[in-house]
């Protein structure tokens, strides 16, 4: 059964130094608040798994929480580069970052395999691509029935997965709607799973066949309204495209980035304090314009 906890307590109890951690959410429902809390609590040596590292992993990498990144597309969507990811890969700042690189189809299949309790995933992929040359974990397997040679990749089985969803009921059953990405697979592939939600309600009113994660498959549910910002929560708020643009100059320099996380993340007690501070900063910037 999932316990209803504050995000601070959930991270304290379920995220450890050295863990393999997946924060999933494909453009939609990215668990940003959880990344902030992991930075506040100073977790170290994490192996980060995520199809699209996005701003959440740019944050964790720049803050020095990560030793390794497993990913399949590392850009700032609609804007350009993830500067902290690039600085870590190209210059080893703030520490060297080992990368293990896949394609989307590969990682999506690897999550499915992880949730299925299988050791590896099989897919038709990578013929003619150089990715297997730089990632020795991309191997091949021969179909015992047809003889076809297919790609084999290890399943993803995180120590802990964190996802964000629209709502949970008071028992901790979670409803996810809209673009699902690999959230369900990432949740079920992990040993422990934390779900942050927009709100806790009496009745989920989930339509038949809706994506519901039952409470007994989860470790903790944490109410964090707005916790997917700057991504969006379908039915609650839209993607903050402006923030994705604003992130580019913030993350471009080491000094600018460090000053930003010192002020807005390490300098705030929790996500609601972060939101308040962000709101004030934006208001001041608007008045200055």
């Amino acid at each position: 059964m999932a316990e209803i906890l504050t995000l601070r307590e959930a991270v304290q109890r379920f995220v450890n130094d050295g863990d393999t951690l997946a924060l999933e959410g494909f453009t939609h429902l990215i668990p940003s608040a959880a990344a902030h809390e992991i930075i506040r609590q100073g977790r170290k040596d994490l192996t980060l798994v995520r199809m699209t590292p996005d701003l959440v992993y740019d944050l964790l990498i720049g803050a020095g929480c990560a030793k390794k990144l497993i990913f399949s597309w590392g850009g700032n969507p609609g804007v350009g580069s993830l500067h902290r990811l690039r600085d870590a890969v190209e210059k080893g700042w703030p520490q060297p970052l080992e990368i293990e690189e896949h394609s989307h189809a590969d990682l999506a299949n690897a999550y499915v395999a992880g949730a299925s309790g299988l050791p590896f995933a099989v897919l038709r992929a990578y013929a003619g691509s150089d990715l297997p040359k730089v990632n020795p974990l991309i191997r091949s397997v021969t179909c015992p029935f047809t003889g076809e040679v297919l790609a084999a990749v290890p399943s993803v089985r995180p120590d802990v997965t964190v996802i964000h969803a629209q709502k949970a009921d008071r028992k901790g059953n979670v409803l996810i709607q809209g673009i699902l990405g690999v959230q369900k697979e990432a949740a079920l592939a992990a040993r422990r799973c934390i779900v942050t939600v927009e709100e806790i309600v009496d009745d989920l009113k989930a339509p038949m066949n809706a994506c519901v994660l039952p409470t007994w498959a989860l470790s903790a549910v944490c109410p964090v309204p707005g916790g997917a910002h700057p991504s969006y929560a379908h039915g609650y708020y839209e993607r903050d495209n402006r923030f994705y643009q604003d992130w580019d100059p913030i993350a471009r320099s080491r000094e600018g980035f460090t000053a930003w996380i010192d002020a807005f993340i390490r300098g705030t007690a929790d996500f609601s304090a972060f939101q308040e501070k962000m709101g004030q900063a934006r208001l001041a910037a608007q008045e200055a314009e």
Partner: protein
Amino acid sequence: MMNYSTNEMMTVAAARRLGNDSVCFVGIGLPSKAANLARLTHAPDVVLIYESGPIGAKPSVLPLSIGDGELAETADTVVPTGEIFRYWLQGGRIDVGFLGAAQVDKYGNINTTVIGDYHQPKVRLPGAGGAPEIAGSAKKVLIILKQSHRTFVDKLAFITSVGHGEGGDHRRQLGLPGAGPVAIITDLCIMEPEAGTNEFVVTSLHPGVTREQVIENTGWAIRFTDKVAVTEAPNETELTALRELEARTAAAHGQAGGEE
């Protein structure tokens, strides 16, 4: 005749390649712009699939990210990302994969991973995303990108997504389903694979573009087919639809979509 930019010519020429009866797996950026222009002009029934999960998306504005909410709201159905790649792409249901690229070579292979050595990169690019399997499993592939000697290179530092491999029948030898890339549409011209070698050659120059311009902006010794056509200039319907789409996008997002 309306005036138009070379970028508009590129998008219109790419959109024209997408038939009304096709199922298209759409990359973000320029491919998404061209595919939606096709849907808003000659191909109202084209099925657009995005890797985040929407099938049959009909956005009124261009998505900034591959998983914008409007893609889900306007789709016929939204499925998990794993299912997109497993059932719909690998299952053989995609007619056209529509891709962008950071770099291509003369056989339509794509690099979106790295410039320089992989382990000591000069420039680290975003990486593969969905492209390797789209390039592998779609029945055919269209590639759209702006042309320069830095993007059209003789030798790729890294092959992220395979086109015709080393040319000739190499792609078939690799056991890949599908025809691979059938056209590269740029702001200067259209290239198509030459029969036999599968080397991309110029088959159509956009109006006003010279052979010398194409040669200057290609990193390999580009060849031209025997009878090079002149691309039909964008007509009023196409340009109006494109400009209205871009205006709606700018109004909705506060920035233009899809110049990635």
